[in-house]
């Protein structure tokens, strides 16, 4: 009788502990923070022109190289010339980098922090931006224009 009680008690403790651990993991996963792009090591360093030409040459290969299935795609440091900068509907600064000879460039959406901290940029200025790639360059038949690559969670590092 006593032995049976003991076994039951141990079983109850194991079940409760299991439930607590399970709930803890679920809670942790649910609240898992976003990847901090700026403190994650860079995957590729390249110029804006190189990225544009990689995409125009072979979009499929470029997508395979840069885009991750879980959305945590490659982190790039791209160097290029500022074409213009603007503020998007989310109050973030977007820097458009494009070389004069290229048909398209890169839209780099800065983090909220970088949006506030980055001074005014001059067109023609050369800068390096670190961020995560979201989409590449391609010619869109429906819009009748080249679409720029998109990089976000970005900051100017040089």
């Amino acid at each position, binding site marked *: 009788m006593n032995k049976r009680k003991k076994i039951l008690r141990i079983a109850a403790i194991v079940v409760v502990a299991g439930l607590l651990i399970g709930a803890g993991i679920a809670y942790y*996963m*649910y*609240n*898992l*923070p*976003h*990847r901090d792009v700026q403190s994650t090591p860079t995957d590729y360093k390249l110029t804006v022109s190189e990225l544009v030409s990689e995409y125009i040459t072979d979009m499929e290969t470029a*997508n*395979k190289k840069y*885009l*991750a*299935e*879980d*959305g*945590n*795609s490659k982190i790039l440091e791209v160097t290029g010339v500022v074409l213009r900068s*603007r503020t*998007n*509907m*989310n109050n*973030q600064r*977007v820097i458009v980098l494009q070389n004069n000879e290229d048909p398209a460039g890169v*839209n780099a*959406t800065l983090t909220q922090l970088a949006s506030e901290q980055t001074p005014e940029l001059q067109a023609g200025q050369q800068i390096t931006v670190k961020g995560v790639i*979201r*989409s*590449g360059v*391609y010619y*869109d038949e*429906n*819009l*009748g*224009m080249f*679409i*720029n690559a*998109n990089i*976000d969670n970005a900051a100017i590092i040089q």
Partner: protein
Amino acid sequence: MKIRTLKQTILTFSIFLLSLNLFAQQRITTTDTHIRFFSSTPAEDIESNNFASTGTLNPQTGEVAFSVPMQSFEFEKSLMQRHFNQRRFLHTSEHPIAQLVGKVENFDNVDLSKNGLYDVTVIGEMTIKGETNSFKEPGTIKVENGKITANTKFFITLADYGITFSRGKPSSNIADKVEVTVLAEFAK
């Protein structure tokens, strides 16, 4: 001397006309866009925002087109964002761009040169995850001091785009129909 001046005038004038004509046919482009997904179930509300889409409007014909980078959709919870991108949901690494191509049906009623708010109907096609479906939805066009704001809100059925979940948590937490809001500001 006189003939030469006349020739020059004609030449200048025709170049002027030609450039006007070219300008008239040009589409207006914008990257001032906000596309939002909203799903509501008793279990939870899920919202996602995208500020990186590019859109065009043809001011003569009322044709509109949008290119939407799918990985630019941001969620409050990173786990949801991960799910959204995965193979069984939107498979964004394989289909990184969604497209909306349409035409404002009653565009003749819209006067882009004058301030006003117009109710319109947009008909067209949407391609998400490689699947194309047609749509016909109401929207508005607001003209204010040369700024054109297009706005539409409608529901899409996820199953139409090959997004189905028969089991597991997502099926109870994500609605079968998701509300989509498209907002775009065009500067003339």
